[in-house]
């Protein structure tokens, strides 16, 4: 009796989230997977048949691959810069600051998440454009700058993306560092490890799950990003994400858009699996086989 009740409770607790996942994620994804094998978008009075031509189109056009590698590279740059900024920041907030400062700095990290993406990107446009805030600031400290020309270029895209995804990276790393068991560090110290050794051999390995979560939360969306490249990149802002957007919005060719999106998803899965294997090995060697 109590066994049934326990299971029923569990079922009811999970029902909302799983039905949400089913209807909002899984089913639409399956629809798109089916679409990607169709000859035309099956809406209105169109005859459609099953085909592989959308996938063939992707591989037959060289520039699709050029744009895909550009998107992958963009995701690598963005993730790397985010990590470089986020780790020291999360470390300082979690382990080096007193309570009330913690809360204040934490707020500063989260606030960008509350603002609308478009508002955020247009603010960047004001900062980065020729004669904009950044140029003015650099000139006023005496740097000999004529035209900054950052807006409508590739670096502007990276700046916009880093700003957009930094909070996720800080949050995920902060969570693991905040919960780090102090007694482990004390144990290391009592065994003669100096501060650097303690950081590299205890703190860093134990914070890896947070780092990985942050990397995943940054890398995947950046690879498919299209708003930031479109608004900040100017003519250098064409990426595989904007190609997918074009297929859906401009051309009503959902099948081709879906096919490219699924190929992208496949590449992400391969890369994540490779990264997972690498990290597992790293973990095993650094803290003596806790795996």
């Amino acid at each position, binding site marked *: 009796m109590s066994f049934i009740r326990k299971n029923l409770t569990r079922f009811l607790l999970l029902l909302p989230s799983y039905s949400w996942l089913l*209807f909002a994620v899984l*089913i*639409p994804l*399956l*629809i798109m997977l*089916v*679409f990607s094998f*169709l000859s035309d978008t*099956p*809406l*209105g*009075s169109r*005859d*459609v*048949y*099953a085909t592989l031509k959308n996938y063939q189109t992707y591989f037959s*056009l060289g*520039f699709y691959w*050029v*744009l895909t590698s*550009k998107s992958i590279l963009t995701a690598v740059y963005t993730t790397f810069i985010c990590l470089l900024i986020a780790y020291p920041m999360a470390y300082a907030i979690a382990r080096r600051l007193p309570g009330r400062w913690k809360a204040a700095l934490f707020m500063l990290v989260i606030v960008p998440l509350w603002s609308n993406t478009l508002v955020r990107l247009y603010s960047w446009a004001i900062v980065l*454009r*020729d*004669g904009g805030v950044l140029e003015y600031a650099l000139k006023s400290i005496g740097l000999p700058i004529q035209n900054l020309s950052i*807006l*409508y270029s590739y670096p502007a895209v990276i700046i916009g993306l880093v700003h957009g995804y930094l909070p996720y990276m800080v949050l995920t790393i902060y969570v693991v560092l905040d919960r780090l068991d102090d007694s482990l560090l004390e144990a290391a110290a009592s065994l003669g490890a100096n501060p650097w050794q303690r950081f590299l051999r205890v703190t860093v390995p134990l914070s890896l799950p947070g780092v990985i979560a942050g990397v995943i939360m940054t890398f995947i969306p950046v690879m498919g990003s299209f708003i930031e490249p*479109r608004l900040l990149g*100017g*003519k*250098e*802002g*064409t990426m595989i994400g904007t*190609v997918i957007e*074009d297929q859906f*919005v*401009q*051309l*009503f*060719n959902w099948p*081709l858009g879906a096919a490219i999106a699924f190929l992208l998803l496949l590449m992400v899965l391969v890369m994540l699996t490779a990264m997972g294997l690498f990290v597992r090995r790293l973990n095993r060697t650094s803290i003596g086989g806790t795996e």
Partner: protein
Amino acid sequence: MKFQKLSFTSILILMAAMLLISCGKATQTIEASINQGNDNQIGGVLRVLNWQGYGSDESFALDEFGKMYGVKVEHDYITSEEEMLTKLRTSPGVYDVLLPNLAYLPIAVQEGLLEPIDTSMLENWNDLLSRFKDLDDIRSNGQVYGVPWTWGATAMVYNTEVYPDGIDSMQVFWDPNYAGQIAWWDSYEDTMALVGIAMGDPDPYHPKDLNAVKQKMMELMPQVKTLWASEDEFDKLFANKDISLGVFWSGSASRAATVMGLPMKFVIPKEGAIAWIDTWAIAKDAPNREAAYRWIDYMISSGFYIRWDTEVGAPAPTTQSSIDALPADAFNRAVMGDPQVISRLVWMQTVSAEDRQQWNQIWEEVKAAQ
């Protein structure tokens, strides 16, 4: 193997449709003041599908129409002609009226997305200039599907303070002296046509040598400062003096000068320009058909047009009384009424899905090389 007849597919389509509707919904509502004792009152809601800031959502229009007929007007916005068609395909019976471009009207008619219009129910129909009223493209099987509302050109604008001597040729887009001064419209369709026109092709909608056009696009790109995607974006670039030259729409140029006071001049270059016509159409199974007819009649009235053009800025009108009400030297009367100018225009044409796919790939390839 045909998927269409399977019932599970229809469920999938329904789900996809629901997704699409929930995305990007931007509706604007104005409460109509109830005017009792007026015989004209129709009541209910009128759902309009149009570009944002394109006349029909001006508050004076919503007020005026609301007072006359007691109808609440709700807008849903589009960012491309394809998006308009997609919204009709995925949500039949939701919208009442929409504003397709004449080049996209035949696609909508062919797919059964529109209702024929009984022109005898429109008081202002006979006020339309015959060259719009008699257009073949607004008809299918003898029935009218689109009511021409405004027309305009896609061509070039320049900053009159930077170029006091004026510019009359598209060759400046390829002139190294103007490098970095240009904002180009990020549309594969219009880019294809405009580059064709600049190369002297009399029929740019059927290019004979796609490679030559692509090569010309490649030469254009280093000259371009940035690509713009919305009217507002272009206005900002121009106002900030990030650019002084670009591809723009005639109606938008007039708005930029009227509302924002920008030193922007629109020219139809000697090589020619793209001309387009926007038409009001009634969606298949429109829930409020009566209000839809009254709306279209109001939209083509000179009363609405003159307020729109003088207070906000509009493209050229299609009715005689609107033209008569314009000042003799107004751009929309003087320039757009000049037979010499009209003869240089290349009217936008319906492009097949295959051609559009190919043109888009060319444009993406050109951009990918940057």
